[in-house]
């Protein structure tokens, strides 16, 4: 309470974000137990408006111990700060649930070790020749925001994640699968693990197409490049700075009409689910791309104010290279979802005379992705006459999402978790490939 009083007394306005993170992870490398890792961290971020100027500061540790330094740093920052054009949130949201914390605490290390042992046994039965890496993790996150404008918001969540990965013999790449959910795993995801093992067997030989244009199946694991580029296009910051390729294009068809993209932070099973953003603005389900048409841009408080709009609840402390308490707030999608279509992965593969299936892309951040451009190494499979015939090696794909995803797109029927967001398999008919 004392800190709230001090914030009220010392500043025109203040916004305090407190994050508590706990996790416990068990990792195996080449089938053997590697590390047990746990973290118990508290992080704090303070933004203030003082004499009409904006300042900010962050600290680690218990707020009771660190708040003098936190306040002094924010005050100093505001001395040099730009003129404030925003008011901090006045919203209220109590989404804290005791069962989320219980859910985290009740799953013991012993239970997780037993699950790993069961998984290991299953994998030995179906693919004992793999060099198998496994991670099993439980994570708890608590977020509280208090503002002197009477904003009070609290949310918490627990997620359990499992990932398996196996390097490809003879190649530098590997294949992986990830599973994430709010409840601990009650059973093994056997069907997906068996498909993973079958795919891995297909990767033992090298097979590459000749340089040219081919259909490409993007797996959900590779599709983050699409949503990262799209975020740059629809970001209110880039609209304001006039660097977005999507300025003045609302209502225009920019992708195939098979493609619809949702922002869905309220998706209950999503690991990225959130009731409010990092500025205390409630999040909402938004249709970003409606059957190929650009439907909306996204804003944080600052860029909404600059463009005379309202925040869409997309003020997030995240960049392509990570997130953290020190990362300044920018407009970003919290949980992008490509709306599923009707094709199965199997149908997509079977209908290909020749093409590739991309499991992973390497070097995306070196492309001019802000403009939708990609020029990346593609790891995955060569597909010929409806079958996976071998792994790709030294193959690059290049193009621009605003040209290549405009026609000839087919969308898979099932959603999978990606690097951030949820995606189906996606077939794009005509992509430039540098191969043999």
């Amino acid at each position, binding site marked *: 309470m004392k800190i709230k009083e001090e914030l009220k007394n010392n500043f025109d306005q203040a916004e305090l974000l407190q994050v508590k993170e706990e996790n416990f992870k068990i990792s195996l*490398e080449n089938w053997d137990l590697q590390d*047990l890792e746990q973290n118990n961290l508290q992080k704090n971020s303070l933004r203030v408006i003082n004499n009409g100027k904006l300042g900010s500061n962050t600290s680690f540790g218990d707020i009771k111990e660190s708040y003098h330094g936190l306040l002094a740093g924010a005050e100093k920052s505001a001395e040099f700060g730009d003129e404030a054009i925003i008011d901090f949130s006045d919203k209220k949201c109590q989404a804290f649930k005791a069962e989320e914390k219980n859910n985290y605490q009740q799953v013991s290390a*012993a239970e997780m070790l037993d699950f790993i042992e069961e998984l290991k046994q299953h994998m030995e039965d179906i693919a004992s020749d793999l060099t198998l890496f496994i991670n099993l993790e439980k994570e708890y996150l608590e977020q509280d925001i208090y503002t002197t404008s009477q904003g009070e918001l609290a949310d918490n969540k627990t997620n359990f994640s499992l990932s398996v990965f196996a390097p490809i013999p003879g190649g530098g790449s590997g294949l992986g699968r990830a599973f994430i959910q709010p409840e601990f795993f009650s059973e093994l995801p056997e069907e997906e693990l068996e498909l993973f093992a079958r795919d891995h067997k297909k990767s033992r030989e090298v097979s590459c197409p000749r340089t040219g244009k081919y259909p490409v199946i993007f797996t959900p694991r590779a599709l983050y490049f699409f949503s990262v580029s799209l975020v740059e296009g629809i970001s209110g910051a880039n609209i304001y700075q006039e660097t977005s390729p999507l300025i003045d294009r609302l209502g225009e068809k920019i992708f195939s009409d098979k493609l619809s993209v949702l922002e869905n932070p309220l998706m209950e099973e999503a690991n990225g689910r959130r009731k409010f953003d990092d500025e205390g603005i409630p999040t909402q389900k938004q249709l970003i791309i409606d059957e190929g048409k650009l439907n909306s841009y996204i804003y944080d408080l600052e860029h909404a104010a600059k463009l005379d709009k309202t925040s869409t609840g997309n003020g997030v402390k995240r960049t392509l290279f990570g997130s953290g308490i020190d990362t300044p707030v920018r407009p970003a999608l919290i949980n992008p979802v490509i709306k599923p279509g009707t094709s199965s992965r199997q149908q997509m593969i079977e209908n290909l005379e020749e093409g590739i299936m991309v499991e992973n892309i390497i070097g995306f951040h*070196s492309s001019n992705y802000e403009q939708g451009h990609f020029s990346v190494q593609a790891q995955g499979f060569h597909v010929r006459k409806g079958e996976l015939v071998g792994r790709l090696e030294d193959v690059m794909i290049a193009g621009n999402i605003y040209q290549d995803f405009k026609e000839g797109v087919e969308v898979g029927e099932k959603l999978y978790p990606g690097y951030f967001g949820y995606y189906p398999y996606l077939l794009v008919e005509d992509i430039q490939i*540098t191969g043999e």
Partner: protein
Amino acid sequence: MFAKMKGLLEVEGLNYGDVRYEKNDFVTISYENQELKKLSSNQREGGHVRIYQQGCKGVSSFTDFNEAKKDIIELSSANQKASKFKEHKIKLKDTEVYKDKVLVEPDHDPRKVSLREKKELLESYNNLALKQDKVIKTEFSYQEIYSRKKFVNLAGTELEYDLLGCYIGGRVYAKKDDVIQSKRIAFGAYPEFSNLLDREEDLLKEIEILQQLVEARPISAGSYPVILNPDLSSVFIHEAFGHLSEADGIENNPEFREKLELGSKIGPDILTVIDDPGLKGKPGYYQYDDEGQRARKTELIKDGYLNGRLHSRETAAKFGEELSGNMKAVDCHFTPIIRMSNIFIAPGEAKPEKLFATVDDGYYLVNSRGGQTTGDQFTFGAEYGYKIEKGEKKEMVRDINISGELFATLKRIDLIADDLEFSEIGGCGKGSPMQLNRFSGKGAPHVKISQVNIGGV
């Protein structure tokens, strides 16, 4: 403080344990166009504990000493349960016990420069960039990191050491018609602040290149001989080879361990690659690592033969090789992992002109735009390049990404120039969660590779 830290290790049944406690100061000032986006000067502190018992390892990060002891007792209990699942018990390489205190003392200390002076310096570079023709956007930031660390272990080591570095990093965007391109700016000071002053001419040279870049055509896809400039060569050796010389990346991958056996011939005779934390003034300079080991120089490749590897105490024991002192954590809440210090390709004997004279139809690729590797596969972006025809540098090209397989590409290095240069700013990402290490240096001379895949539109 040492006593308080040792108290955390008073847990029954430990074979080994260590505690690292850090107090870190960060100064960040950033501009986007005319707007000051951030000015902060913050401190954070916290610790990290590693415990070894019954051949198992547990690690724990904390920000609150009061909760840390309880967490470590819980972790120790989980470790004991886990030991029955551990097939190959962990051993640590024997090492000396050190008691030492080493602190940096620069002539022009960034910590003594006022926040106002730092802001005004950054603002002046930002304003200069904004005034230039075709420039539509600027992003400039000043970052300063001062990290004070204390380390104790159960064997009796007690160390106090620090790291200090600062840099100005920026990206300037230019536009002509529908083409938008950007160029990176990087001035580093590890740790002499004077390195950041009077850099206007350097900045204008970079912007001149950017103004040419929006007029350049995209590169054509295909396989070509290429000459990499020192910055791009250093990223290549860091990303494609350096990460495979970190033992924790290959220790549990039998195929890579076989490919990377010491004594294997993996490059031409002219290739020597070194990791050296003892290079004062370079971003990767340090005297002790975060596992309580003395820093040492390692010849990774000598005359084309694999000669050394970067190790932790755990991997040195597992591989039966020498300790190297390369365990680093980038902040208090991370566990140390094996990192390069200052990695570089040793200079060759050829003059840079000789490299150009040997290319009939290829490209000169300049400066890194970031890179990524998985295993022995790599992809790097180049900021810009030039066509080379019959030994002569011709028109500029843009949108360049190269990719390949490390071992084949190393063998295709056929000339190394004598003009070794180090990058001004450190930077290396590794780990999950990602640890972005700003105290990691890299260098190289011009290098010619006889064939590389280029992805173009």
